[in-house]
């Protein structure tokens, strides 16, 4: 498709301002003004609408395709939450209003949403308090690690290391590193769990935190989790819970009960807010009692007269981590989702997510190698090593699935599984959808034996074939030029 800039025609316009209603003022001195126009395209409203509508049709999405992208929890996003987020009372509210004198009363509705969501998340995870401010999961991780640093500093100890398993999300070591820590990576043992001997060897009183995902990125619940937490606590280190996989545990287990001190949650995963082509998300962070004082400012508090207010004067706080109170529009949708599902609906979500994943696992395990022979939770991880022997790699399987109308699973992650295929069906998918997907996966396994070339040519039915990614990286063309 042509770029929007290539459709430009001088003189067209997609929007008109009302005629000027104020007298013309003296123009700004030329030295402050730009000397030439931009090359933004000028088009009619229809041109713009048609361009982007047609572009949208080139995407797979949850509303159009099964999207079992492991670790991303691509569940259906209920539509009514979009309508709620668009209510003028929410969407048109300036974030500085409650910071004006007496302004708290101008934003009681939104402050209540923040306060109540915090209460829900605290109960769901077993934590003492949450900050709703982090703007995405990784931003939550950074916030969490900074809270941990503040906690240790307050105890007069400067620790140097953060421990992560080699199966962790890349964001974990990256967040620890940019917060100023050195990262120690613990390998996964033959049993699929973090190697406890190696863990013990590296654990000492210079370790600030241990960052874990639970269930881990292999979709497995580690039964040693409490032991791992206890050992960390013995040396004064804190336990960090990466909430990417919380969907599996709703109502079943809580990070707080498992011994975690800091938790981030991806609202766009577990709590049904749309992923928006890569964002916005929201990554609220929950903490145990010992860390509450360090939470970012401001905090939303409920006063004795049942009104809500912002609290800034918290001398131990790490300070500002976001301009305001978080991605409010996302938090609001997650709150509506939680209200709608309620206790039973959330438990059911976890149960059926785990049912769907186990069903996928059992139906495919004769055709693909399981990464580890274990019960899975919300996602199952296979290796295409068997297929790779015939030249059919995980990426080829992904491309063939695209041809068949399925968004591929996550491939090549976790890094510790060769040719990894990570499948997370989520609870909102029906047996029929999953059965049809399984059928295609089995078809591919057959083709890998009989006609590998057929798989390697895919996709053949998409707007483009496989792209030259080497050319993209060697000769970066990152913008259109006039």
């Amino acid at each position: 498709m042509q770029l929007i800039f290539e459709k430009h025609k001088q003189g067209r316009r997609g929007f008109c301002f009302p005629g000027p209603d104020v007298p013309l003022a003296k123009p700004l001195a030329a030295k402050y003004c730009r000397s030439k126009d931009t090359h933004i395209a000028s088009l009619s409203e229809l041109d713009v609408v048609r361009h982007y509508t047609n572009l949208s049709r080139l995407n797979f999405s949850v509303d159009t395709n099964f999207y079992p992208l492991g670790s991303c929890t691509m569940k259906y996003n209920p539509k009514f939450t979009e309508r709620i987020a668009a209510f003028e009372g929410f969407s048109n509210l300036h974030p500085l209003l409650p910071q004006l004198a007496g302004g708290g009363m101008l934003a009681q509705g939104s402050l209540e949403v923040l306060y109540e969501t915090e209460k829900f998340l605290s109960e769901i995870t077993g934590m003492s308090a949450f900050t709703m401010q982090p703007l995405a999961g990784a931003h939550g991780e950074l916030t969490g690690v900074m809270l941990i640093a503040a906690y240790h500093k307050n105890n007069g100890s400067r620790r140097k290391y953060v421990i992560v398993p080699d199966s962790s999300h890349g964001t974990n070591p990256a967040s620890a590193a940019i917060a100023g820590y050195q990262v120690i990576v613990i390998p996964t043992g033959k049993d699929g769990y973090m190697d406890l001997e190696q863990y013990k060897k590296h654990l000492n009183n210079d370790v600030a935190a241990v960052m874990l995902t639970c269930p881990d990125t292999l979709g497995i619940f580690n039964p040693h989790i409490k032991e791992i937490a206890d050992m960390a606590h013995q040396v004064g280190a804190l336990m960090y819970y990466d909430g990417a996989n919380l969907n599996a545990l709703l109502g079943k287990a809580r990070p707080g009960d498992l011994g975690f001190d800091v938790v981030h949650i991806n609202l766009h995963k577990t709590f049904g807010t749309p992923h928006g082509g890569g964002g916005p998300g929201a990554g609220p962070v929950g903490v145990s009692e010992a860390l509450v004082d360090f939470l970012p400012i401001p905090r939303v508090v409920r006063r004795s007269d049942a009104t809500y207010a912002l609290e800034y004067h918290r001398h131990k706080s790490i300070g500002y981590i976001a301009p305001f109170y978080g991605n409010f529009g996302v938090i609001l949708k997650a709150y509506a989702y939680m209200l709608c599902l309620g206790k039973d609906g959330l438990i059911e979500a976890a149960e059926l997510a785990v049912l769907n994943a186990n069903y996928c696992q059992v139906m495919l395990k004769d055709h693909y190698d399981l990464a580890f022979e274990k019960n899975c939770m919300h996602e199952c991880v296979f290796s295409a090593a068997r297929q790779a022997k015939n030249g059919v790699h995980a990426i080829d399987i992904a491309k063939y699935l695209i041809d068949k109308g399925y968004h591929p699973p996550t491939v090549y992650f976790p890094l510790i599984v060769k040719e990894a295929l990570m499948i997370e069906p989520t609870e909102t998918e029906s047996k029929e959808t999953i059965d049809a997907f399984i059928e295609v996966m089995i078809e591919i396994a057959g083709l890998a034996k009989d006609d590998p070339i057929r798989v390697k040519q895919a996709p053949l039915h998409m707007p483009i074939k496989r792209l030259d990614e080497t050319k993209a990286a060697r000769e970066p063309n990152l913008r259109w030029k006039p």
Partner: protein
Amino acid sequence: MNIPKNLFYTKDHEWARVEGKAAYIGITDYAQSSLGDITFVGLPKEKEAVKQSEYCATVESVKAASDVYAPFSGTVISLNNELVTHPELVNQSPYEKGYFFVISLGDEVEKKNLMDADTYQRYVEGLNGGSVK
């Protein structure tokens, strides 16, 4: 697998060719073929000091980035600037046109920490659990 005789090799698959007081430095044929199409080479600065076994450069493919460690200590005297626009030279000619940079040699005693071609050949075979073509 091309492993020229006259070079020194490291366990991390770097090579060095000593010419008088200078050494050419690059990555081996084995390294370039395991990385795949190389898209970028991050070189040190001229006059920068490098230390044996320590980070000195970066080499990237589409989906991976690897650190390059210096086979010898010394000072960078010239760079292969061709790699900035043509990183594919590392794939095409890892020991000649695809060298990374030249250093003025520090201590030649460091040679004892490096492998010769035969030893490197056996080392690589060991990694692959079999013979290397």
